[in-house]
């Protein structure tokens, strides 16, 4: 056996600067976020899908009719993040939450900035907390996070 050798380590970064076309429907959702507005779209039977999709995920039929929803909603499920990762939207503990916005038939995933897991429960009322208008660019994080409604 050869003599012990120092084991080398090296940081490696793999990064791709992707840019993608949004299409008209996701583009509308992002445009509305920039305006500080949440929208959905009508699917089969008039259900409101948020975020909007080009096709109804249940029937595959084309969707039609933009609908404004929220800004309040109800938490339908959540998971607490005690140690946020660098790429997470908040750098202090938060919850990933599924939020069914008022007027919507589906729930959307976003960060819930609630301080502690004791402050979060399924069924709680939350509302949108926006970035300042001048910082919004048409990205999901224009919606900074959801926050408990009573705190707003």
């Amino acid at each position, binding site marked *: *056996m*050869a003599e*012990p*050798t*120092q*084991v*080398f*380590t*090296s*940081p*490696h*970064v*793999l*990064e*791709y*600067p*992707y*840019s*993608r*076309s*949004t299409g*008209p*429907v*996701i*583009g*509308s*959702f*992002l*445009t*509305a976020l*920039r*305006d500080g*507005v949440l*929208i959905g*779209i009508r699917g089969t039977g008039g259900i409101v899908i948020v975020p909007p999709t*080009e096709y109804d995920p249940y029937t595959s039929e084309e*969707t*039609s*009719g*933009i609908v404004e929803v929220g800004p309040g909603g109800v938490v339908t499920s959540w998971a607490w993040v005690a140690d946020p990762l*660098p*790429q997470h939207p908040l750098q202090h503990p938060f919850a990933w939450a599924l939020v069914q916005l008022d007027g919507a038939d589906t729930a959307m995933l976003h960060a819930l900035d609630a301080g502690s897991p004791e402050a979060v429960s399924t069924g709680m009322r939350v509302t949108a907390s926006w970035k300042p208008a001048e910082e919004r660019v*048409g*990205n999901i994080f224009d919606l900074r996070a959801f926050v408990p409604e009573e705190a707003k």
Partner: protein
Amino acid sequence: MSDQTYVTKDPRGPVTQLATPMRLDYLFTAGLSLSRNLRGYQRAEFVGQKCPVCGKVYVPSRGSCPVDGVALTEEVPLKNTGTVTTYCVVNVPFAGQSIKIPYICAQILLDGANLSFMGLIQECDVEDIHMGMRVEALWVDEADLVPSLASVKYFRPTGEPDADYETYREYL
């Protein structure tokens, strides 16, 4: 207004593009075997490891023989010379390219090794590169030696007669 479109009063108009950068941060740990190989580069030396069962010499070695599943303990210093088993002439510019095109990337089987690895060929016209060509490693200046393949400046033809096809046919 189309039924599928939200209309904004924002002078920037509708959002049509979304930047979605993807980034993965790794901490690569070389392990004992590869670290010995990397340490060799700092001495301007190729270090392989020999399998005690099949006798094959791996460079760079990952510490075990993939055929026999045994640990490799015997270190084998290798010469600077080898044979081009196959190659590719790069003619396409791409982001981050540091070498002037056209240039040659070749799989090189070092003398005494049973595993080829990729190396840059220079001092060779792209018309002249071929399978079986004998090449040698040119190392960077001693002060610039580092524990990585960056210590190998490039490979260049030795001018020797080509290696016999049978000597490298297993390594294509």
